């Protein structure tokens, strides 16, 4: 039995419903008592359970001074390489813990552990995203101490993780220049949900057709407030602005 939420498996507890206006565009029958049938109003967000756990996580992080970041990208954008480089730069200045989400294998957690930092791998199996319930359990089993940096590397996927709040302070979307510069328009939900966009592999720019200005313009169409940093996680001298961003948050 889980100590956080009382779950025996992955069952989640119910949360409060939201208020909502009735919409008159639908055409189904409102017959209240036909052949023993009756109408039950639910008026609840489908993600209410996840959002409830995310809020619990967020409160826990705030109470314990844990700065949680949710790293999202398509597969291969360089999230793990960015985390390894970030850990190597900062591990002597603050406690860092990592939660790795992948459908299969412990390979990413192994790469993080090689830096000397504790990492927990969550294999989501068929699921394409981490959810807030996973994160609550992971934080407990990692025993993340107060005032840590908690990096959550989500499953490589620019679609589904945008819907699932984990309780993080910020979503950080990583986009590499070996991808298309039009990805913000192709996957708008993620760029709408993120607070920071990191354009990675910037050292490879001369070998690609990636237009940095165009990419930033597209991202800002969707999310005018999004911050943008450009770096290459394999080139230490390009990491300064990112490390400064972390220090200021």
């Amino acid at each position, binding site marked *: 039995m889980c100590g956080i939420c009382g779950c025996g498996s992955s069952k989640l507890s*119910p949360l409060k419903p939201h208020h909502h206006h009735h919409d008159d565009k639908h055409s*189904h*029958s409102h017959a209240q008592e036909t052949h023993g049938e009756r109408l039950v109003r639910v*008026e609840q967000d489908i993600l209410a359970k996840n959002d409830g756990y995310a809020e619990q996580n967020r409160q826990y992080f705030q109470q314990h001074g844990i700065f949680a970041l949710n790293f999202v990208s398509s597969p291969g954008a360089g999230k793990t390489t960015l985390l390894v480089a970030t850990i190597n730069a900062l591990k002597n200045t603050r406690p860092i813990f990592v939660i790795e989400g992948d459908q299969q294998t412990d390979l990413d957690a192994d790469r993080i552990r090689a830096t000397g930092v504790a990492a927990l791998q969550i294999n989501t199996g068929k699921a394409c995203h981490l959810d807030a319930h996973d994160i609550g359990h992971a934080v407990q089993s990692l025993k993340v101490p107060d005032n840590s940096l908690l990096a959550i590397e989500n499953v490589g996927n620019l679609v*589904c993780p945008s*819907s699932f709040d984990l309780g993080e302070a910020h979503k950080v979307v990583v986009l590499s220049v070996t991808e298309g510069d039009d990805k913000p328009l192709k996957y708008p939900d993620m760029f*709408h949900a993120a607070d920071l966009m990191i354009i990675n592999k910037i050292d490879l720019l001369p070998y690609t057709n990636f237009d940095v200005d165009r990419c930033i313009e597209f991202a800002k169409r*969707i999310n005018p407030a999004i911050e943008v940093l450009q770096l290459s996680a394999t080139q230490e001298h390009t990491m300064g602005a990112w490390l400064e961003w972390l220090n200021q948050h």
Partner: protein
Amino acid sequence: MHEISLLESVLETLETQAKQQGFQQVKQVVLEIGALSCVEADALRFGFEVVMKNSLAEHAELVIIKIAGQGICPKCQQQVLLETLHDPCHHCGSFGVTVLQGQSMRIKELIVI
């Protein structure tokens, strides 16, 4: 296919409601899906039958009500209908319209026995 995860969450809510409101079978599930939400109605319909199999909502009808996307333009302050998150304001052409409605995914009501 996070639609499957969402439908599993719907099923959990149905099971909880069945206990709270005292019903055994669900005949119809009405969802409200925002035009700007990260979900495809067709994928929900495809997954619904699979996820509800052998549950209290097996053979239930799924009704999806689409909720239009709406926003307000930060420049001209006019209300804007949105089909995507990157639509410009159709009054003044500015981007960055603030979304007011159309991102939610809700279980509205059920018909039960």
